Structures are given as structure tokens and as C-alpha cells.
């Protein structure tokens, strides 16, 4: 069940991604409506993170393309922000909370250029929005998991984008942080921003998101939460991978075959 969004900010066409020759995303076609809080749901290894990394240009797809605000990513970079998984960086890096949030201003400040006073103020505003202003001088290795996640969010907020992709922002955070984050996300979508979140908890997904993508290597469903959360579609997503698809994926990897013919 793949429903077209009326006013899409993101369109993906025929996207296939392989990792070490093994396809991790097959033929994805989807749209996401503007101003929505969208959840990407699926089991472990379903390709959820791969999908948003591909959209952000961090992984090159074997085929297909995505368009953001009806344009290629490179033309709209400043309107898009990405929140990586918390575990993807070394938190022992010599930096303070403020240093990290300030990174959100780097692209706007420009290469070779110094950080301006206005950038510092915007970074501080972002820290305030996540309730971490008291921690601005704290060394990042001294933060709890929830605080680290808030810092990552603040960094993205400091970019002042219109579309946000967040990879597992609720993983390993305390309940208070989870609530604070979800409130913040609702506030953002209330202001017309679009937020796409990788999430793996089904129960909270129903409460949190308006639009849902069910993903398990292939796109099982994309649409409003009420239409997508049916036991049949969930069964399709979580009831194991399609055996034939897995078999063919394994074959490609084993034999070193390309997933797409190269021109």
C-alpha cells in the first residue's frame, strides 16, 4: 500500500542500494507530505538508516534518485538537516556541548570563514530549545545518552532547515528526554517543518507519527498512520523477509554479481 502524498517535500524514484554487492534496499518509490512527522518503521537490518543516508547523499545508490523540494539534494542542502545515530561518533572527542552545537552553523558560516557572533547566538538558542543551555560548557564525554541525543538535536536545529532526517533519536534515551524530543518535533511540524524519523518501536510509533513508512528491504507501505497500521501490513513487514528476495540478494553477493547493469 503506497500512497502518494499530495504536497510532497520528498520524492524517491526506483531507489536500489547495495552494500558489498548485497541489495539492502530494493526499488523504493515513495513520497512524503510537507509538514508531516513521518516515521520509518521496520525490523533490524531493514535498511531504515540506509534509506535516509542515501537521501542525504552519504551512500550512492545503484539506481534511482531522490528529489527534495522538487530539486536535487545539492541545490537545497541548506534546507535539509541530518541527525546521525548517537553511537556513530566518538564522544571522547575534545569538544564541549557548545562546540558541537556550533557545528550546525558551519555550512551557513562558510568554509574558511570565522564563526560570527550571530552563529553563536543561534547555537545558544538551539541549546535552549532542547533544555541544555546549562550544559553548554560541559565536555561531551560527561553527558548521559539522553543528553547526547539532545545535543545532536540542538546541532540540527541550529541549521534552521525545513526538512530534518533523524536516525534513531529515541534509541537509548530516558523517558523524560523521549517526551521532550517528541514535543519538540511536534512544535517543529506545527511551524511547517517536515521531520522524518527512523524508529523501531511499534507501540509508540502509532502515537508519534502522522505518516508512516513500513520498510523491510522493500517498501511495504507508505501512507497515513491509520491506513498503514493494519495487521496485514505489519505482518508483511515483520513476518520475516521475503525468502525469494533474500535468496537472490545472497546469490548476488556470493557470486559478486551487480544489482544493476552498468552502462
Amino acid at each position, binding site marked *: 500500500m503506497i500512497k502518494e502524498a499530495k504536497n510532497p517535500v520528498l520524492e524517491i524514484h526506483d531507489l536500489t542500494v547495495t552494500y558489498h554487492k548485497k541489495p539492502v534496499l530494493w526499488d523504493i518509490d515513495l513520497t512524503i507530505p510537507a509538514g508531516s512527522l513521518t516515521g520509518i518503521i521496520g525490523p533490524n537490518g531493514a535498511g531504515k538508516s540506509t534509506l535516509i543516508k542515501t537521501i542525504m547523499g552519504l551512500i550512492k545508490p545503484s539506481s534511482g534518485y531522490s528529489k527534495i523540494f522538487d530539486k536535487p539534494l545539492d541545490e537545497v542542502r*541548506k534546507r535539509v538537516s541530518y541527525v546521525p545515530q548517537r553511537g556513530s*561518533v*566518538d564522544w571522547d572527542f*575534545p569538544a*564541549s556541548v557548545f562546540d558541537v552545537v556550533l557545528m550546525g552553523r*558551519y*555550512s551557513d558560516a562558510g568554509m574558511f570563514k570565522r*564563526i560570527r557572533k550571530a552563529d553563536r547566538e543561534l547555537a545558544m538558542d538551539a541549546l535552549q530549545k532542547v533544555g541544555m543551555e546549562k550544559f553548554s560548557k560541559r565536555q561531551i564525554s560527561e553527558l548521559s545518552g539522553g543528553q547526547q541525543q539532545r545535543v545532536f538535536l540542538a*546541532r540540527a536545529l541550529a*541549521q534552521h532547515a525545513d526538512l530534518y532526517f533523524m536516525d534513531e533519536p529515541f534509541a537509548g534515551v530516558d523517558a523524560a528526554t523521549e517526551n521532550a524530543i517528541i514535543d519538540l518535533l511536534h512544535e517543529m511540524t506545527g511551524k511547517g517543518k517536515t521531520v522524518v524519523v527512523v524508529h523501531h518501536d511499534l507501540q509508540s510509533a502509532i502515537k508519534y507519527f502522522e505518516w508512516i513508512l513500513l520498510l523491510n528491504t522493500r517498501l511495504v507501505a507508505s501512507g497515513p498512520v491509520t491506513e498503514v497500521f493494519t495487521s496485514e501490513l505489519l505482518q508483511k513487514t515483520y513476518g520475516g523477509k521475503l525468502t525469494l528476495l533474500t535468496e537472490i540478494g545472497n546469490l548476488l553477493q556470493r557470486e559478486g554479481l551487480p544489482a544493476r547493469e552498468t552502462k
Partner: protein
Amino acid sequence: MYEQIIDFLSLSDPNVRTVVLGSILLTSSSAIIGAFTFLRKKALVGDAVAHSVLPGICLAFMIGGAKDPLILIPGAFLAGWLSMILIDKITLHSRIKEDTAIGMVLSVTFGLGILMLTFIQHSGNANQSGLDHFLFGKAAAMLGSDVIIFSAIALLMVLTVSFLFKEFALVCFDREYASSMGLPVKRLDFLMTSLTVLAVVIGIQAVGVVLMAAMLITPAAAARFWTDNLKLMIIMAAVIGAVSGFTGALVSYLYPSMPTGPWIVVVASVFAFISFFFAPKKGILQYMIKQRRIRLMINEENIIKAGYHIGEDRKDFTSSMTATDLIRRRPMPESKLKGHLAKLTRQGYFRKHSQGWELTNAGYKKGSRLVRIHRLWELYLTEYLNIASDHVHEDAETIEHFITPELEKQLEQTLNYPSEDPHQSKIPYE
């Protein structure tokens, strides 16, 4: 010897000035670049690059026929880069993992370099003398013209780092995020790698290919112990590099036949060891002192608590107690107990009598607080964590020393000021 040192330190000899300036520039600039190598966790790659520079130098010499840095530097630079690419390609396209690839490239290229060096040395070429200084470094062998070239390169490197500081830092910390912002991560990577190779190439004059990796990594590793601020860390690394380089130049001046690299690296390592042991917050010594302080605090608090328990048993908190009474409650060697008691008396928790000791008012308050927290914690564990009441004592024995007044208040409120612990002992409030 003494006079020579004075002579050196006065920097009156232009040759000395050249060598000192050259050495300091080389080692401090490699320490600055090395800080990023360290943060990117590429220390071993740095080592492989340093070793692989040797065949590049030899080949450049064979082709160019002279020991001119303008010939040798490009040769060394190319060789360093090729080894880096080789490591990447081997890791990417084979089943060989990165550490193995690094080991392979390092030993193969260094072996090749030694082979070529031996060949050159036996070729009868008169220009070759001193080429072997690149193995372990020889600061004093630097000529004025070399220093000009090295300084220019070092200056260029430092300028590049200062212009692209925030971009480099971001790529080191979070590559994917940097990439998502549209930063040219691949080009920045290329630049950082080139700077690392360049730092190695110009550094080997003073340090030599064998130990060059230590010059990249050690100053940054030492500086990391002292600060959490990246800029400060890099400045400290540069200073450590400079001091090491200066020592190298001095040694090279005093003992012309001595290679300088080992000296430079030993000095840098001394900084690293000092940092490792004595740095505040992160040093081993600080950690040990803290652990000792905690043990002492626990022992003293336990003695106060023993005094409180005795008072509780006798229903009289002002009665005097002997060392034997206390040891029965809290077994420990008598001499140790008396040592602690002397201190606790001085601090005003105990009062000494002819027959023994008694708790002061302050001692009574402290003892009652410890017992209160102990019993509250036991109750919390049985009620909220469903732990059997005969299993909670050990846990509370430790926790009672660490609960802050805020947590104590929270505990009281959560449990709603209970009167008894799980073992039906009364919980004292004041």
C-alpha cells in the same frame, strides 16, 4: 661540555640558529598535523607512511643524483601517498583487514627502502653520504637552504590548519554529518592526508623514518590528558613538539655522531609519561589519590556508624566506648582504628576520655544520617526493586556513603518518611 651547552643556548652561531629553528619548526608542525591524525585514529597509518617514504627518497636520489630537498621531497611525498592509497585499496578490495594491510605495506616498503639504500651506498656515488641519516634523523645535517624550504612548507601547513580548523575538526568528529552539510569531505580528507604525508616528509630530516610516527602522535596524545579543548590541545602538542625538537638539535650539536630522532622521541615520550601519570582529572596519580580518599572516607564513616550503633544498643548515645567495643562492631586492626579515631577526634566527631571515646553531637548527627540512609535504601530496594530483605544489606553498606543530601530528600519523599526498615529497625530522623 658545559661551555658547549652555553654556547648552544646563546644561539650565537648562525649554524646553531639554523638547526634549532629547523628542528623546532619540523617537530612542532608535525605535532600540529599529528593531532588530527591522532583524532582520526590513524596513528598506525602514519607509521606506515613514514616507513614507506624511504624507498621514495632513495628512488628520487637515484634519478636526481643529488641530496637536494627539492628532489627528495617530491619523491618522498609520492611514496607516502602511494602507500596510503595502497592500504585503502587492499582493505577495500580484498578480505584483508586494515591492520594487516598497514603491517604489510609498512614492512614491504621499508624493506624495499633499505634494499635501495644499501644499493646506493655500494654504488660508489660520492653524493650519497648522509642519505642514511633519514633512517634515524640528524638535525645538524640541515643546511640553511634546507631550512628555508622546510620552514616554508611548515608554515604552509600551519596556515592551512588554521584556515580550515573548524572543517577539519568536524570531519574528525562526525564525517557523515559534515558530508550531509555539503562539506567537501573527500577533498578535506585528501588535504588532511596530504598534510600528514608532508609532515612526515619534512620531519624525517630531524626524526628519521623509523620514529617519525611517534612525533606525529605522542605530543597530541600527551596534550589530550591535560585539556578537553581542541585548540588548546593542539597548541600544547605544538609546544611539546617544539621542546622535543629543541632537545634534538642540542644533542645533535653536542654529539655530532649521535642520531637525533631517538632523542626527540624520548623527550616527547617523557612528556607523555608525565601526562599519563600526573595530569589533573585524567592522570593515574589523581585517580589513585581519589580512590584512596574514598576508602579513607568509608572507613571513617564506618567508625562513626559503629559508635552510633553502640549508642543505639545501649539506648544511650553519650555513653563512652572502648576500642574493643568499636572493633567488635567494625573489625579492624586496633592501631588502624586508633589512627582514625585520633583524626575523627580532631575533626570533632568523637571526644576522648580516660576510659575511651564518646560521640560528640556532630558525631551523633553524622552517624544517624548514615544509618538513616542505609535503612531508607534497604527499604527502597525491597519495595521498588523487589529484592529480598536479606539481600539488601551489602548494597546499602556501600550506597550509604555516596548519597547526596538531594537524593536523600528524594528517597525520604518517595518512601513517605517510613519509620522502619525491612528488618524492623527504627529509621532515625535527626
